[in-house]
């Protein structure tokens, strides 16, 4: 277990955050950037990991990526169930470890004994009032398929002894997360079952559980990997080939990574064509299409994205298309990519 640090403990984080790489930001600023729920444990934990990396230079958890997942609370059968959406994990991220962090409430019985049994009043009636050891906590994980509303497949269960006082604890759930990912079920629910009929009011938001996944992103050494996760505007907006279109004028400034393909690929040009000797370049500009086999010559000039999308659908539905004729599964995969 670990104690939940208060914001008063963050001056130590301030030192790390105000190092030579970042001389403009205080932890308060960083916390503010995390949003309205910033004063919760997950925000503090992530800031501390960041600070630790900056101070020591050691990769967090031995990998290059730490993802946090906030819980979304729902009451099911009058019991709190915490939902986690892990779908933002990338295929290239190899999970090293995963931990479930949660706040354990102290058991209720000591308070009752304190009320009825004063320290020196060890009479028979007092002993009768002592309800015995508190029930064990049960932590139950289920995974949900994205298209079903069912309760989900049981992924793991563990029994916990409630700590004597309120305490943040962490449980290794690496195998649960790995199995859920392997099966493509990245919506996870966690239930802390105290065995009580009325578990009481849900915890305040600052005590919401969270999941940390430590991973090694194998694609991070790829050229331009920073664009995959951080460049969220479309470098080739819809009107990029239309006259008068302003650069970066995409309506949605945060597009999915699927849009981050390099220009030659978008143009269906062979990568490396531009590497031919200089005299050949001039000719290439005018006779580029001659490098392609006949099916590609049939392609018309580029159109806007919406038109292209519509055309894709048309192509998909019209089996008689002469340009591309992929099956539905292939097309879906391509769109996802």
């Amino acid at each position, binding site marked *: 277990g670990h104690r939940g640090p208060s914001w008063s403990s963050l001056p130590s984080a301030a030192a790390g955050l105000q190092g030579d790489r970042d001389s403009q930001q205080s932890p308060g600023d960083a916390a503010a950037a995390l949003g309205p729920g910033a004063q919760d444990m997950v925000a503090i934990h992530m800031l501390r990991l960041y600070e630790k990396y900056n101070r020591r230079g050691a990769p967090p958890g031995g990998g290059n990526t730490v993802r*946090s997942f906030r819980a979304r609370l729902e009451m099911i059968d009058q019991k709190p169930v915490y939902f986690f959406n892990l779908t933002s994990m990338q295929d290239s991220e190899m999970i090293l470890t995963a931990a479930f962090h949660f706040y354990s409430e102290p058991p209720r019985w000591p308070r009752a004994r304190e009320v009825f049994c004063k320290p020196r009043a060890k009479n028979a009636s007092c002993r009768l009032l002592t309800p015995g050891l508190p029930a064990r906590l049960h932590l139950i994980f289920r995974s949900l398929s994205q298209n079903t509303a069912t309760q989900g497949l049981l992924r793991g269960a563990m029994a916990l002894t409630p700590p004597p006082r309120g305490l943040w604890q962490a449980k290794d759930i690496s195998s649960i997360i790995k199995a859920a990912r392997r099966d493509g079920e990245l919506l996870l629910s966690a239930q802390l079952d105290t065995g009580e009929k009325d578990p009481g009011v849900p915890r305040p938001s600052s005590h919401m559980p969270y999941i940390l996944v430590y991973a090694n992103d194998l694609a991070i050494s790829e050229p331009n990997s920073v664009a995959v996760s951080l460049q969220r505007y479309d470098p080739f907006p819809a009107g990029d080939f239309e006259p008068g279109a302003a650069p970066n004028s995409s309506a949605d400034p945060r597009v999915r990574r699927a849009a981050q393909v390099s220009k030659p690929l978008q143009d269906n040009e062979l990568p490396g064509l531009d590497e031919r000797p200089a005299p050949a370049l001039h000719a290439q500009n005018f006779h580029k299409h001659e490098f392609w086999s006949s099916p590609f010559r049939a392609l018309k000039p580029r159109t806007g994205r919406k038109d292209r999308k519509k055309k894709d659908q048309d192509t998909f539905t019209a089996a008689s298309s002469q340009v591309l004729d992929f099956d539905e599964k292939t097309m879906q995969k391509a769109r996802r990519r």
Partner: protein
Amino acid sequence: QWDEPRVCSRRYLKVDFADIGWNEWIISPKSFDAYYCAGACEFPMPKIVRPSNHATIQSIVRAVGIVPGIPEPCCVPDKMNSLGVLFLDENRNAVLKVYPNMSVETCACR
């Protein structure tokens, strides 16, 4: 600017994520020292520019002028450092990623 060395070397560049529009989702750092490489890789190249063998030969060929159109070797980053970035993903969950090759430590003629 007049004090800038002409030979290939590392120059100072501070990148503020707000300037490139990434500040909406990057929590920290707000800025970092990226540096860049600039300058000439002329013959004869001093050891300080750490020329590759190929760059040395290319600069000689260019200096001799036997093959027309050969440019100078390029002044490019040689050693680079990684940078840890704390940012919010599409679901507004905090993510810490350590990106390699984010700031230049040394430059070289290649």
